[in-house]
């Protein structure tokens, strides 16, 4: 095996072994195929779902909600985090509230979200927003607070205006930590969307799982799970690519 092929072939091999173990478990467990479908059945039903357009529809619906909630959380959370990181008094004021709300599972908000926003995209987006917002705020605040003070002295020494301190020091300094925190948060958001869709909406991969369970189609349940896993993998891959762009490389070497 050439050294370049190894990082690609090894993960493929791990998936093949995983599927083999799955197949063997189904065969020797003695469970009915309706309860524990084997890989081939799942693959065939996956084809059905793709051909009917059903899978695409639900996937798009889930991705839309995650994107909307996650972007909203980032757009509001990062500036708030920067503000709290730069303003000691504001941090003292807001931190107790944030740290009080943060450990409450977004799922606990489901009853309220449904009452406030009704049925549809909005409660789901709200829940994803909640799941991403607090981690992003906290990560940004910590990132700003841990900027090496030397850089602020440099800024003062070179007569930086306030906006220059923000654009030339604070933002570039925190980008690496922000990218890392977004990478973790997008995974949380993706976990939460499935749960939210089981309750508040009539579409999405979470709804597909719930609906298939009601129809006793465990093969469809597994199809939805596989798609969720693959998209999670894909989202993580994208975020990892982002963390390798030029403006963040310095951080991996500095620390």
């Amino acid at each position: 095996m050439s050294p370049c092929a190894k990082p690609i072939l090894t993960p493929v091999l791990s998936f093949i072994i995983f599927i083999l173990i799955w197949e063997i478990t189904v065969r020797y467990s003695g469970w009915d195929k309706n309860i524990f479908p084997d890989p081939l059945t799942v693959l065939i039903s996956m084809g059905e779902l793709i051909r009917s357009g059903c899978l695409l529809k639900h996937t798009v619906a889930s991705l839309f909600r995650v994107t909307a909630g996650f972007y909203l959380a980032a757009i509001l959370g990062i500036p708030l985090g920067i503000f709290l990181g730069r303003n000691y008094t504001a941090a003292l004021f807001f931190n107790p509230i944030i740290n009080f709300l943060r450990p409450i599972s977004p799922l606990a908000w489901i009853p309220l979200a449904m009452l406030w926003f009704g049925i549809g995209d909005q409660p789901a987006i709200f829940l994803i927003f909640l799941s991403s917002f607090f981690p992003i705020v906290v990560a940004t605040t910590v990132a700003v607070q841990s900027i090496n003070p030397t850089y602020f002295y440099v800024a003062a020494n070179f007569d930086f205006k306030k906006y220059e301190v923000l654009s030339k020091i604070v933002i570039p300094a925190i980008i690496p930590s922000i990218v890392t925190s977004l990478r973790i948060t997008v995974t949380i958001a993706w976990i939460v969307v499935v749960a939210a869709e089981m309750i508040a909406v009539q579409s999405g991969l979470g709804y597909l799982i719930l609906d298939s369970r009601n129809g006793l189609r465990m093969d469809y349940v597994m199809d939805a799970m596989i798609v969720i896993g693959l998209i999670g993998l894909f989202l993580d891959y994208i975020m990892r690519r982002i963390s390798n762009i030029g403006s963040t490389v310095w951080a991996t070497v500095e620390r």
Partner: protein
Amino acid sequence: MGNILIKKISKEFCNRRRSSRESDNPCPYGDVVSVLNKIDLEIKEGEMACILGPSGCGKSTLLRIIAGFDKQTSGSLAINGKEVDGPSSNNIFVFQHSGLLPWMTVWQNVELGLRHMKNPEEKNHKILEYIQMVELDGFEHHYPYQLSGGMQRRAELARALAVNPDILIMDEPFSGLDFLTHMKMREEVVNMHQFLEKTILMVTHDIDDALIMGDRVVVFSNRPSEIKVNRRLDFSHPRIFEKNPELQDIRDELFLMLGVSYGV
């Protein structure tokens, strides 16, 4: 211009974290550490002054006060006859550990001090000029982490000089460099000083640095610091201890004063 006049400057710290913020009673729980004790010092325009002293004696604190990063507890500090009330690009600080912004290339770092220049052609020309002055041409678009320690110091020096400040404040600029790089940087700074005639204030722990580079050597005592020696060094360059018995005598004297019985 570049005259620094320090009169009876004292600095006290609280022996408690997070309490350096000014208030009526800065140390409610006592534990005042007096770092600088009524320091009087004048550094004349174009002079290169080297400050020596035991570690923890407040040399760096004095530099930070002069740069405007920190405020003295009492006493007055004037640069060019004007009371200092904050940092200014007229006196650029060169940090002990790199002060280069790591997310910017050498070029962008040097550009910081020239960013207000209107004519882009003129500006690029200036940036290149300073990069060439410290012999970093070819590394303009490298990030600081891609440079060696000595190159990082030179890049920071270029950035500082590009602002064309009256005063350069250097806090142990050679610490962490290997021996040969240290020697080379010493030579470069002396050449730069003779060429540009800026006022330079440098803290060092290296007695030879002070004696070879300085027009004036200042020695601090232990905390709370007072000035033990303040002496003009009017020797021509290159200064070689073996050929200059007077310089050699001063060196022996300083070693003894700083508590090293030399001749191990």
